[in-house]
């Protein structure tokens, strides 16, 4: 039993390490996510005409805009996780060598670190450029972690689905819509509550539950999606 768990954990670690090693040599996802997020951030700040603080006009949009930036950047980079395996014809070797569950977790872990890095880069810039004070920093960070986790796991599952289809670009948006919409709605509410210092517990609990549901669904569905 312990040996099986240890082997599985090692497989996840090797897949995660391989993803980062390939990424650091091409920097495809890092550049795509970073540039997309930075461009959107500048466009948003210019459209709002500079710092908005907590003005009554801007309040409803503060959390929405942050998550739109994060979602768009993630959508530009994360679907590549499995598409790259199919396009470079490494999926066949991977299907024969790796257990589906360890592959899913290794890829999701890699996407998770990408999203967290993106959040760590974009969020402080967003808050500084728009001069937004955060009333509950702890709840704010928790909302980012919960949203990022769901975004990473959900994107991994969707990426596996679309990798085997023809029209991959538009398909990601179509398939992601029903899966990520509830997550974003909950997370945006949690982030806004944290910024304004209102109670965010309920939203955060819902977000964590949705994350757990996505993870279980991903682990159950992935073998059927990945293998013929």
């Amino acid at each position: 039993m312990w040996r099986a768990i240890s082997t599985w954990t090692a497989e996840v670690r090797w897949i995660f390490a391989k993803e980062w090693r390939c990424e650091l040599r091409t920097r495809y996802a890092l550049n795509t996510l970073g540039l997309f997020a930075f461009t959107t951030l500048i466009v948003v700040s210019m459209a709002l005409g500079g710092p908005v603080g907590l003005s009554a006009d801007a309040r409803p949009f503060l959390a929405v805009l942050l998550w739109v930036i994060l979602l768009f950047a993630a959508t530009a980079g994360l679907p590549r996780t499995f598409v790259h395996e199919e396009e470079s014809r490494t999926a066949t070797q991977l299907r024969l060598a790796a257990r589906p569950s360890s592959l899913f977790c290794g890829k999701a872990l890699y996407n998770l670190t990408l999203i967290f890095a993106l959040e760590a880069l974009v969020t402080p810039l967003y808050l500084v450029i728009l001069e937004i004070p955060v009333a509950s920093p702890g709840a704010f960070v928790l909302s980012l972690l919960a949203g990022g986790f769901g975004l990473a796991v959900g994107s991994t599952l969707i990426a596996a689905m679309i990798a085997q289809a023809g029209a991959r670009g538009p398909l990601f948006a179509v398939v992601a819509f029903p899966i990520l919409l509830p997550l974003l709605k909950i997370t945006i509410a949690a982030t806004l509550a944290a910024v304004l210092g209102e109670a965010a517990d309920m939203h955060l609990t819902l977000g964590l539950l949705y994350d757990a549901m996505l993870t279980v669904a991903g682990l159950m569905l992935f073998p059927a999606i990945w293998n013929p």
Partner: protein
Amino acid sequence: MTARLTLRFENLHRGFGRLRVLRGVSGGADAGEALLVTGSNGSGKSTLLRCLAGLAVPERGTIECRVDGRALDLDQRRRAIGYVAPVADFYRELTTAENLDFFGRLRGVGAEAGRRLLDELGLPHDRLAGALSSGMLQRLRWAGALLHRPPILLLDEPLQNLDRRGREDVLRLLDEHLASGLAVVANPDRLDLGHVARHLDLDG
């Protein structure tokens, strides 16, 4: 002691939409044997190998692999297979040794096995897979397939792009494999493999 190993497939059917590729194909091989599958382009050789590898599901028919009388399930069969095919490539961003190290670890094999195979096949350890010539890439496919000493080798056009030395090297490795394992070899024309015990012509 050599394990009793058999691979049998009966009445396999597989198509793509309205195109029927495999229509009632049957065959098999035992330990120490190579089954040679020949046929013109589009006759279904690669599709047959993909079905045997568990990478495609036949619409009808059965595939059975037994080791010492025990039938392997689909996951066990996938792990018992070494696959050489034009569609089975390696990470272009990683070196030959890093690629074999990664796939070897997933299959429970240490880095040493990969390095030994690279030496046997005359491949550099530190060259990126994306910078390999087509012949060197084919040698790397062989190294990847033999890495975990699988009992079953599925070889789709295994001599493609290889020079004379490369052909000699891989045929020697195939000989060593057939001392205890079995192989299914798909090629448009007949190959002189020495160990071919059975022949299946998909055009016939």
